[in-house]
């Protein structure tokens, strides 16, 4: 019901409302895009205090520049770009690395972290354990890879949309996401092998 109502407020409708002085319309824009902004700030910024300032900064910038939004992309993509650039600027200021190089294909033998599970309870426990381990492994990735992986797999953005947000070529986005997944898979395999020994 709520989603249906959200759909009714098209980007153009909301932007026109804000430009005509309707603050409530800007509140709706924040509600619509907050998930994406949270995803990006949580993945790129480790300090919770700084996240709060950055999230506000992102929307204040969006409000200030809204008259320059030309509807050439989705409003959420445009706000995603502002979020990405604001986080990037923060990382540069703090001299933090956005990314580093992954190693080349190590050609490690295939292991299994998809064990044969005997029943639903075991299945549930395994999935819970995997979720926790995976969360830790994702946190260990560099900010850019964490962000790209989350935008693709959790926010359901296409490679093209992610490329637009990050201003990276689509091929580079694909390549980085591929590497991030591979690293995650290898790290999970290592972890499960170590546990088995």
């Amino acid at each position, binding site marked *: 019901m709520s989603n249906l109502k959200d759909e009714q407020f098209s980007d153009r409708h909301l932007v026109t409302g804000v430009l005509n002085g309707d*603050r*409530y319309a*800007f*509140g*709706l824009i924040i509600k619509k895009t907050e998930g994406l902004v949270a995803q990006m700030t949580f993945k790129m910024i480790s300090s919770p205090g700084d996240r709060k300032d950055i999230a*506000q900064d992102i929307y204040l910038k969006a409000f200030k520049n809204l008259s320059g939004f030309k509807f050439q992309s989705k409003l959420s993509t445009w706000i995603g770009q502002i979020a990405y650039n604001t986080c990037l600027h923060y990382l540069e200021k703090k001299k933090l690395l956005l990314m580093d190089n992954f190693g080349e294909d190590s050609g490690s033998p295939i292991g299994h972290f998809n064990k044969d599970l005997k029943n639903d309870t075991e299945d549930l426990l395994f999935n819970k354990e995997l979720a926790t381990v995976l969360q830790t492994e994702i946190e260990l990735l560099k900010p850019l890879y964490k962000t790209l992986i989350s935008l693709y797999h959790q926010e359901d953005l296409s490679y093209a949309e992610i490329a637009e947000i990050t201003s990276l070529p689509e091929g580079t986005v694909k390549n980085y996401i591929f590497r991030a997944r591979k690293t995650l*898979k290898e790290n999970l395999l290592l972890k499960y092998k170590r546990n088995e020994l």
Partner: protein
Amino acid sequence: MITAHLTDAEIQLYIVEPENINDQLTIHVQDCENCQANIANYRLLFNGIQDQVKPRFDFDLTNLVLEQLPEPKRAFPWAVLLISVFSVSFILLLGIFFWSHIEAVITRTPMVLIATAIAAAIVILIFQAVEMIRNHQKQLHALLNVNAMQL
């Protein structure tokens, strides 16, 4: 049939964009336990990432931002002012121009008739005012309900 195992890139593509996978590779996967295990690992990984809890801010971002927005600068309503001045001037001019006729109508009409007309006008105005207040309350109520649903 291809004998070499699928690379990581091919396996990821096999899951994400199966339509772009070569038929030979698909045939290989059907008979290769090694590749099937690798695909299962990746599938599990993809599902695991997808099922991760999405981060949420533990503060009310909307209110925080809205409090900091500058007050909108409202343009001076020149159009409304012009129309008002023009309307008042027009009525005054009419009044001045036809004053002798208006005066004659007032003096010649019986007081009872004038009092009745004034009373009728007041009653109509009261009904209209009540209707306007009701409409206003109804619209405000609807707007608040929509606000509550949206936010």
